[in-house]
């Protein structure tokens, strides 16, 4: 194989892809499991903020869950919020400081279970903020419990026999729900399980931020992320599960894309 920078006598190395500029070298370890895709999505967001040149203007409202560990490393102004309340806190800050670009980073449980009231309230008021939800179909931080997004039949530590619709109901489709609100101008669902989807998700997030910069309305992006330990799969098997099972329940794409509230 003729790799980059390789010849028959010496190996020279050149950096083709470093860490994003908004990624600090944290004093402690950033706590993620092998194969977890939270850091992948963190990277997508970093790349978007840097390419748009807005990393110094954003304020990030963090939910409670694995996603919130990003506060160790992100070189952004951030507020770590009460569980489910990032949208309430973000609403208030944006109202008082409209120049700031306000976005929330939340898990599916944070936004859709305990934070459902804040989510509906913010969309009802057509808040000019951007929401990014990391959907791994379970509560990863607390040991893999049932989430609103858990698939029918999926085993979690609180649905050990698999999610039974008769007992636990059906998965919540956040991106489709967000699109039904008049105040929402943008809603999409992406994934990062293939390079092509990584790029598509990056485009979705960039579009969502642009809607806020244009003062158009509420913008929402849900992203499917693998959680191998709680899915009891290897990292590679987890990517197959996204491809074969999860996107069947949670289809990818844009559900709403308007330039203004219509």
């Amino acid at each position, binding site marked *: 194989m003729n790799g980059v920078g390789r010849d028959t006598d010496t190996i020279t190395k050149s950096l083709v892809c470093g860490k994003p500029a908004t990624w600090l070298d944290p004093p402690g370890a950033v706590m993620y499991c092998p194969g977890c895709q939270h850091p992948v999505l963190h990277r997508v967001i970093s790349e978007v903020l840097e390419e748009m040149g807005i990393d110094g203007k954003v304020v990030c409202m963090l939910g409670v869950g694995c996603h919130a560990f990003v506060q160790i490393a992100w070189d952004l102004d*951030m507020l*770590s919020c009460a569980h489910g309340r990032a949208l309430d806190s973000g609403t*208030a800050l944006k109202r008082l400081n409209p120049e700031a670009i306000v976005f929330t980073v939340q898990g599916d449980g944070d936004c859709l279970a305990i934070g459902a009231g804040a989510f509906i*309230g913010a969309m009802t008021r057509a808040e000019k903020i951007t929401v990014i939800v990391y959907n791994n179909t379970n509560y990863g931080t607390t040991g893999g419990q049932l989430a609103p997004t858990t698939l029918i039949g999926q085993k979690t530590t609180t649905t050990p026999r698999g999610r039974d619709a008769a007992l636990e109901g059906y998965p919540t489709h956040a991106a489709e729900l967000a699109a039904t609100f008049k105040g929402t101008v943008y809603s999409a669902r992406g994934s990062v399980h293939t390079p092509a989807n990584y790029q598509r998700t990056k485009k979705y997030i960039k579009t969502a931020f642009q809607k806020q910069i244009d003062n158009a309305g509420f913008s929402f992006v849900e992203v499917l992320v693998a959680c191998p330990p709680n899915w009891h799969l290897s990292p590679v098997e987890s990517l197959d599960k996204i491809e074969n099972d999860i996107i069947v329940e949670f289809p990818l794409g844009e559900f709403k894309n308007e330039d203004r509230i219509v």
Partner: protein
Amino acid sequence: MAERMFVQGNEAVGWGALYGGCDAFFGYPITPQNEVTQWFAREYPDRGKIFLQSQSEVGSINMLYGAASGGFRVMTSTSSPGWGLMQETVSHLASAELPCVIVLVQRGGPGAGSIRHSQMDYMSATRGGGGGGYKNIVLAPGSVQEIHDLMQLGFCLADKYRNPLIFLMDGILGQVSESMDAKTIDFGPLDDKDWAIRGRDMHKDGKRRLINSAAGVLPLPPYPNYISWLSHMKEKFCKMEDSELRYETYKVEEADLILVAYGYTARVSKEVVNMARASGLKVGLIRPITVWPFPYAAIKEKADLGCKLLVVEDSLGLLIEDVKIAAGAQADIGLVSILDRHLPTDGGMIMPGRVLEEVKRLL
């Protein structure tokens, strides 16, 4: 130059906030404080300030959390059931050291209780109703003018200590109308809120600002670990307790009996002191203006002199627990409570005549 007006206690909350530099109000309707929310809805938008009705009291208090993190002076107002809903985030506000003012217009409880006055939230206000054993300064005004003045002090103290502040009222104080002078009170300079989040480029040092309420999980500089951070919190709470005690004494000299009351029952008690003194009985009043920190020493001093103590509060007996701490277990402490109201319905009040009866029985 003061603006003279005749207003309700609930409206005085608004005027005090306005003259105290409050940037935004976030609230949810609940009786008997609706005039507060409506005042802000009416008066704030035209002045370029923010009023926003939230989807719940949980929403309001978390809006405060976000707004305060941006360095703004912000407040909410609620009554007892809403106060219960807010407790988790009051704890987060204390933990994240975010200053704000929370007005609690107490109504009857427990549960939905009644929609009229009471003083039944004393414990959750003074002890930190959420998890974790934090402390808040709790201001307890006794008149419409004092509501206006203490609201401004409240914003100052919240900023000074980077801590939420509780403003403890009741349905009577909220509904009563009195003359009031509205003007800005100068409490002196405060530090810039250099810790506030505004976007990294907005900071002179170009460094990010991070605020969280989980110092034990994700330690924040300058505190390397959970216990060092807790030591800092302890130091701050002690400083608040040592420096911010406020109370009024009324005709306590050579008194044989001291009434202890705050809020509307303190107004009743002052009347009782005048009635008792007119009939030759040596009665005085100690009125805590801060119910945390509490005037333990002032009450102990009187108890040690052999004064009898009579607590007047519109509850089953909560303030009396602090009076017991002050005076000691052996002290002679009486209670005129919610059971002594002049009517058995939720409209009943503790009247001066009933308190005077008890004073005469004790002396």
